[in-house]
């Protein structure tokens, strides 16, 4: 399985993501700089977290209009797996590859802590390493993770199994509607989530609940 990580200026969890993909996938992902003209042929494309363009204007807005995103859109249409974490999720939403919007946290504060996630749909390329209803630990670190969508969109997401993860056990850190932490596109080859599974994959992180997500996405789970 080959993976690539797209890097925009201001992203800062790119190194964390590269480390996770390397450790779990056994090979280093290709790094795609936002000004590169194309994305190499890979099976998984990841947009990591951080503050692309300083989170100025709206989180992810400026990166979402970068020319490399057109190349990404073509890959999505071809069925390539795309994962966006935190700012990566915001970028995918701003680019219209995922529905809704990520608003400022209800507390208005940046929040960094561990939360509980419920695996809502374990029947996808990203989540088959988990079981449906499983509760996992995962850290969050963001200022704008408050998921919002209109009632119709929400109903569609819920009805079509497009909610991937939900904050569980009263740990919703940001006020997200329906406790949504991560969602899929219609075809379920695009996943965006606010929490950071890449920061919980080994003993040094105090746990490895995030590992199965990468193992699934990298086709290491049958």
């Amino acid at each position, binding site marked *: 399985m080959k993976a690539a990580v797209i890097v925009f*200026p*201001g992203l*800062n969890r790119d190194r*964390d993501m590269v480390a996770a993909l390397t450790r779990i996938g056994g090979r280093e992902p290709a790094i795609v700089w936002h000004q590169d003209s194309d994305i190499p042929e890979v099976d998984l494309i990841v947009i990591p977290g951080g*503050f692309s363009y300083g989170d100025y204007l709206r989180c992810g807005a400026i990166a979402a209009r970068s020319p490399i995103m057109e190349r990404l859109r073509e890959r999505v249409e071809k069925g390539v797996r795309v994962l966006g974490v935190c700012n990566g999720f915001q970028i995918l939403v701003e680019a219209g590859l995922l529905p809704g919007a990520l608003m400022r946290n209800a507390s208005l504060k940046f929040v*960094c802590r561990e939360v509980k996630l419920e695996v809502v749909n374990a029947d996808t390329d990203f989540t088959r390493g988990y079981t449906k209803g499983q509760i996992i630990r995962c*850290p969050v*670190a963001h200022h704008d993770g408050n998921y919002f969508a209109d009632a119709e969109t929400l109903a569609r997401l819920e009805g079509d199994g497009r909610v991937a993860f939900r904050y569980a056990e009263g740990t919703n850190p940001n006020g997200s509607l329906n406790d949504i932490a991560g969602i899929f596109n219609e075809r379920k080859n695009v996943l965006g989530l606010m929490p950071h599974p890449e920061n919980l994959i080994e003993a*040094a992180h105090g746990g490895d609940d995030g590992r199965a997500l990468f193992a699934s996405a990298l086709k290491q789970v049958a």
Partner: protein
Amino acid sequence: MTLRNDIAITPELVAEHGLKPDEYQKILDLIGREPTYTELGIFSAMWNEHCSYKSSKKWLRTLPTEGPRVIQGPGENAGVVDIGDGQAVVFKMESHNHPSFIEPYQGAATGVGGILRDVFTMGARPVAAMNALRFGAPSHEKTRHLVSGVVAGVGGYGNAFGVPTVGGEVEFDARYNGNILVNAFAAGLADTDKIFYSKAEGVGLPVVYLGAKTGRDGVGGATMASAEFGDDIEEKRPTVQVGDPFTEKRLLEACLELMATGAVIAIQDMGAAGLTCSAVEMGAKGDLGIELDLDQVPVREERMTAYEMMLSESQERMLMVLHPDKEAVARKVFEKWELDFATVGRTTDDLRFRVLWQGDEVADLPIKDLGDEAPEYDRPWTEPVIPAPLAHADVPQMDVAEALLALVGGHQCSSRRWVYEQYDTLIQGNSIQRPGGDAGVIRVEGHERKGLAFTSDVTPRYCEANPYEGGKQAVAECWRNLTATGAEPLAATDNLNFGNPERPEIMGQLVKAIEGIGEACRALDFPIVSGNVSLYNETNGQGILPTPTIGGVGLLPEWEKSVRIGFVAEDQPILLIGG
């Protein structure tokens, strides 16, 4: 707002620049003529307390700064300590007290930005940050606003930049009501053979400006940081600087990329009085003159004068001396990261600091006297009066359980989670112990088992009661917090926050605290490798509690064995050890 260079130099103007009459006389003697307006600005920036350490230098020299692992002690942007395997930890602490009181968010944010720059200027990638905060009484009308602004600002900058905050302090005391303390610490990792210094070498080499554009931010700011607060504080507001962590993050990546190309001979970040201090320091340290052509400086505002450009504190800027044959390589790196890049001067062999602006020479000064030969004072000081211990009968009696509850519920001991959950404590994926324990611990990237521990400590009320013992205690607590995680303490940085040094009793606090710190550091083989002094922390004649913050760094051979504060199992014996 346009200022000319031929403004008459009056005694009032001299005073406004924070220069005492005898200091001005020294300037006249030194250059043999009246300074130009720009020159007066340059002197005020270089000779103020903040840049010159004129009141504290004599005493700082008494601190132990050497050790078998110390690669670079005080005098550079940050201290450098060997951690084996060809790696070094680079760290420093710095205050941003006055700006944070005026505009808590931006003041704290730019404080964090400044200390991060100090670290990556030396070629190190920042891997850990701490913040030691002191606010007024919780009930004081300004406290809530200051706490939320400062914490948001520290997080706003550090989180976006991408460095984990692994520790810090938060304390409240009415003595900080009008003068809060914001001390920011940063540490980075570098290879021991790839450390960069500010000393310029080579004549006729290009001096290159990098980073953000220059505006009128903080013009007069460095002077302000060394002036006592009075009631006219509102008037000083427009000099606030705004931080841009997005630019800083790009500057970090660009600098590290550039350093890897071998193009950099010397580098200095532009902090307080940016262009002035950085250029003079690079030249003075290298025994070289510097000539600047201000018309080449990237500016973001119109009609900026030489005076404003020389004193601007715009953030996220660097000055470098580059190998001339690598200029094109360097330019390419900065274009990739979309940062400004301009050759703004050259090194010379005449030991002069010359500044050209619109065809005029607006400054021509002896560079050594501005820099490493700035004035130094042996200020009068008095021995602190040490209060007698309370008589046993005077100790208030209280039910033990009630006392415990009061302690645990009080603002001095309550949980700091509200603060540190606003900081990204796990970015970079190496945080072994996050805030909440004795010291923060990170794993050393590129190494299987090694870890580093960080803590920041001082108990100001001890220092108030007995500056000498308080200084010792701060070092000892810092040392203990490191060892409590299983780390071997390596070295420390200090941030000495005191009141007005022109008052002998305050100067006495400073002298005795430094003595205590030195004594403890010598006893523990715990050298001070960097630091910062913040004086004039007073409002209307009332000084803060003497607050010499100690930031310590320790080394763990195996991070797996680092010990935490939580009990791990039932039925385990509890031991009490020590004195």
